[in-house]
């Protein structure tokens, strides 16, 4: 380990310290309040209009904080006509006064939207960026993450099947009997699929399903057919009758593909991206937990 990376590590460890978080957050809040009300203006009901403050106001309005943008806004401000500048001051005053009055009334803590917004902003600050405090993942790390989350990259099992349907709405026993007769005929090759369609009932969805997921098969044909299609051996024989909500089904499964797992090489970018995001989320949770641990939480719950 080089001296530089060691000192970087030390710095990183420092960043993980809850105390450090307090210092950073404290500094952020201090900066925010300084901007909101320097010189104890809030108490004194005094508002000082300065070039600097108008510029900041413009920056917030435009949601832009880069140096070049600041230079440009400064230029805009300088070239404003007196009327334009007066309008800007008017806008600023209006917002500043309303904001201060709202704070004075404590609206910031009673308005749930603002409360949530502040909590979200804090979360955003704590989340940080993927690049900060995070080394590029090693191949080993990538591989481990890939294997741990392999279902995310798999494509699901699929089945190809067709079925004939016997509607149980009118006479359930009759429907089952017809299903059994037809099954025998299909198995003895006295009847083919098209022929069976002629003596069975219309199914509300479809009679053919090609390369479909279990989710879709189950939503149309019910659990029993889904089990038959995805859990039993595939031999193209006619099976059933299986019960669904609407009636009885005879099913012929001609093909099934297992869930396929891609090679890590082909999805490496995606996995790396997911890993980075997962690390950022983990770090966020650590930071929030450590903040919570700094509080003494008392409960009056029974």
């Amino acid at each position, binding site marked *: 380990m080089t001296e530089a990376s060691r000192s970087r590590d030390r710095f990183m460890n420092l960043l993980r310290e809850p105390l450090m978080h307090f210092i950073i957050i404290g500094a952020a809040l201090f900066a925010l309040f300084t901007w909101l009300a320097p010189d104890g203006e809030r108490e004194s009901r005094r508002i000082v209009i300065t070039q600097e403050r108008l510029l900041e106001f413009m920056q917030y309005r*435009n*949601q*832009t904080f*880069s140096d*070049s*943008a600041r230079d*440009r806004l400064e230029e805009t401000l300088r070239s404003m006509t007196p009327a334009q500048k007066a309008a800007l001051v008017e806008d600023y005053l209006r917002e500043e006064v309303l904001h201060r009055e709202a704070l004075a009334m404590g609206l910031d803590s009673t308005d*749930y*939207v603002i409360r949530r917004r502040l909590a979200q902003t804090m979360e955003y600050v704590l989340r940080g960026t993927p690049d900060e405090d995070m080394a590029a993942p090693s191949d080993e790390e990538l591989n481990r993450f890939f294997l741990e989350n392999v279902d995310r990259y798999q494509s699901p099992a*699929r089945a*190809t099947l*067709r079925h*004939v*349907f016997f509607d149980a709405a009118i006479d359930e026993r009759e429907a089952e009997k017809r299903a059994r*007769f*037809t099954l*025998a*005929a299909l198995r*003895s*090759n*006295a*009847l*083919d*699929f*098209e*022929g069976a*369609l*002629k*003596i*069975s*009932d*219309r*199914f*509300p*969805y*479809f*009679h*053919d*399903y*090609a*390369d479909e*997921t279990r*989710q*879709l098969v189950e*939503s*149309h044909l019910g659990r029993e057919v889904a089990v038959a299609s995805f859990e039993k051996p595939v031999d*193209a024989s006619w099976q059933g009758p299986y019960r669904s909500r*609407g009636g009885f089904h005879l099913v*012929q499964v*001609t*093909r099934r593909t297992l869930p396929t797992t891609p090679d890590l090489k082909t999805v490496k970018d995606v996995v790396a991206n997911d890993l980075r995001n997962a690390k950022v989320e983990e770090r966020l949770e650590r930071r929030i937990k450590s903040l919570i641990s700094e509080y003494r939480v008392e409960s009056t719950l029974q």
Partner: protein
Amino acid sequence: MNTRLTTFLLAALVWSSPIGFAQPSSPAYSPVVAAKYPRRVYWGDLHLHTQCSADAYSLGTRHMTPADAFRFARGEAVKTETGQPTRLKRPLDFLAVTDHAEYLGAFFHAGKRTPEVMQTSVGARWAGYLANGEDRKLFTEFADALVGRGAREDSRLPDFFKRFVWRELVNEAERFNEPGRFTTIVGYEWSAAVDGNNLHRVVLFRDGPEKTLKHIPYSSLDSIDPEDLWKALEGYEKETSGRVLAIPHNGNGSNGMMFADTTIAGQPLSTDYAARRSRWEPIYEVTQVKGDGETHPYLSPKDEFADYERWDKTNIGGTRKKEPWMLEYEYARSALARGLVHESRLGVNPFAFGMIGSTDSHIGISTTTEDNFFGKFVSSEPAVNRMVTQMAPGFPVPGSDFAASGLAAVWATDNTREALFDALTRKEVYATTGNRITVRLFGGWDFAPADVKRADYAAVGYSKGVPMGGTLNAAPSSKAPVLMITATKDPDEANLDRIQVIKGWLDASGKTHEKIYDVALSGKRRAASKAGKTPLVGSTVDIANATYSNSIGAESLDAVWRDPDFDPTLRAFYYVRVLEIPTPRWTAYDAKRLGATIPSGVKSITVERAYTSPIWYKP
């Protein structure tokens, strides 16, 4: 009964059946490959934008890539632009990412400072806007481009950049195309407006990269006249032997121009125009996030269900108010009727279109169910204030007007680019306002009431008639068109209320008419005869809790309906509308989940529906 007897009886049944089939043979490896006709309907979205669309990008869609859009559509969980995790209840079968051709990919690349765009003067200018947070200037430049005003020399992008972006988009679509499982269709949107009147068309290709890469997306900077777009598409087909079509949308924002009696140049429609329009534009996108375009209460005062997701205040640019005379030239039902008028004069029907729905979402996220609606722009992603947030700067439409709509349903022989495109061409497609309601429609002269109950009714439908999108010619003497219809609910959503047939016709004096027939009703209701109204299905909606129950309505309905008012000498069209029982609108879910307040006058209950492509009758 012994097996031999059963076999005999069953075989006898087969033998006596009216339609012949091939001899029994060993089952095909994949039965659907051999299908002679479509066996199932496929669901998708043919109109979706990502960060590569200039308006999407300048209004905040900075991270949602075409890849994100494809992943989401095929069923993966994705985080939206605002960081909200989301997923579809069920994957879509196909998706077309159709970003605006105007400055396609350019703002996104300017934001990334990609060398290809930074070496153009216009790209450098945009990168400057972005660096300065002047995103609005970007949006204004895009809005200018739509009306052809961006044509000034320094706003044009060189072809090498257009090709660079197009290659990226085509490659992404190819990467996600999995024939048979998930189909991606290559396309873009030509986004012209005349004086703020919407004339937008989505352009879709049947072909793979060896052909599509020869094309450069045609934009409103090239021309704002759809006839010029058709010329460009014709050029593409000539050069590559490929296939392409255009799908217009949002007639409701065209202030009477979408289905006008004159061309953009002000000429009355000619036979040649009618032939070219029906050739290049066989489909109309009738429902989407910016409102529903089936019909309007002003046009269909007797239609109890006409007042649905209306956008009728102004044109799309917000530059001119809507006037009642415009409506007839904006909505699908009246346009289909106008088509009959033109056909009687020109011999060709310019507006013989089929119908689909799609989303037109600009956040890369195709959501259409009321309980999982993610809006149009970043500003209408789920948030407590999205009902009152306006659509975009200068577009003062409140978010509450957005419709959680719609989907394209395609009866195709297979889930491939070619099969889906061919189904669009023959109009065997239909629209829903977001739920996966299965609807099948056949028209013929000889369907018997029992035909629709048969498991192989589709085979009967094809052998004795035509599917949706087809035409019935010259009625045999003393016969009237018979429609055979089946409809089934979305397995995840609400039950069905009814099936309706919407008929439009042209009388001998040249006047158009429409009539609605209730042809199948859930429960024990009877359709009204003559003057009366059919009893409503009722409502189980609990607005406060955003719930409903399937204790009313039917899972599946069917009908064999003979036109009781048929005159064999008059041109007519028939299409089917299927209505769900009332359910909570997305606004009710927002109120329940986010604590949002529903502004007065904003609906909190909806009636989801499906519109099939018509079947026409020609004397």
